[in-house]
């Protein structure tokens, strides 16, 4: 009888130990999976942080570009207003210039001026889009040297007189 009880206890202890061993192994396996998942999550978090930092840098760059474009737009608007004033200029005797009539009298001269202005306008767009100023543009201080279409952005050293 005592032997049978010992045998039952032995099997109970054995099955308990086996169960415990299985449980520990199971926990280890789960722990490994969780560790791997945690590493993946950490990697994803790092990627997200890099992405957020990149987006912040992009926003900052876009803000800077937008600021430059806004400034250039304001300058171009000022130049456009100035160009309109120049086109309909009134001379010292109070006579308003009529470019249409001048074009009828001197078509080649007006065409030549317009062609030059067209080239200057194209250059204005280049500058507005970020093209650096040339030495000639930077050194222009006389009216005959300036870009008449966008003096504010093309010739920063020119002072109107």
């Amino acid at each position, binding site marked *: 009888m005592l032997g049978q009880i010992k045998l039952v206890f032995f099997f109970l202890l054995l099955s308990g130990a086996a169960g415990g061993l299985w449980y520990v192994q199971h926990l280890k396996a789960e722990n490994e999976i969780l560790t791997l998942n945690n590493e993946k999550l950490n990697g994803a978090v790092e990627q997200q942080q890099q992405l957020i930092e990149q987006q912040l840098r992009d926003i900052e760059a876009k803000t800077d570009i937008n600021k430059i474009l806004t400034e250039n737009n304001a300058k171009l608007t000022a130049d456009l207003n100035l160009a309109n004033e120049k086109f309909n200029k009134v001379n010292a005797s109070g006579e308003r*210039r009529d470019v249409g009539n001048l074009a009828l009298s*001197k078509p080649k*001269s007006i065409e*030549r*001026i317009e062609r030059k202005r067209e080239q200057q306008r194209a250059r204005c767009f280049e500058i507005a889009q970020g093209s650096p100023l040339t030495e000639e543009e930077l050194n222009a201080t006389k009216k*005959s040297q300036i870009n008449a279409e966008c003096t504010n952005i093309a010739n920063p050293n020119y002072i109107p007189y």
Partner: protein
Amino acid sequence: MKDTVIEVLKSHFGADKDINESSHLMDDLGGDEFDIVDIIVQVEEKLDISIPEEETFDLMTVSQLLEVVGRHAGSD
């Protein structure tokens, strides 16, 4: 002829302007390319002459203007 040109220039740019033969039409008198064409047309009307456009393309100073006008005022 010279007086007429100076008169046109003073009428265009202002009587207070110091205009002499070395005056630059743009840099000294503040004109632009359209002003130069306008002045040439006015001078032509005043002196009843006709100046070929090609001769006025690079005209920048009063002396150049006087020279071009002089060539045609004498012959017309």
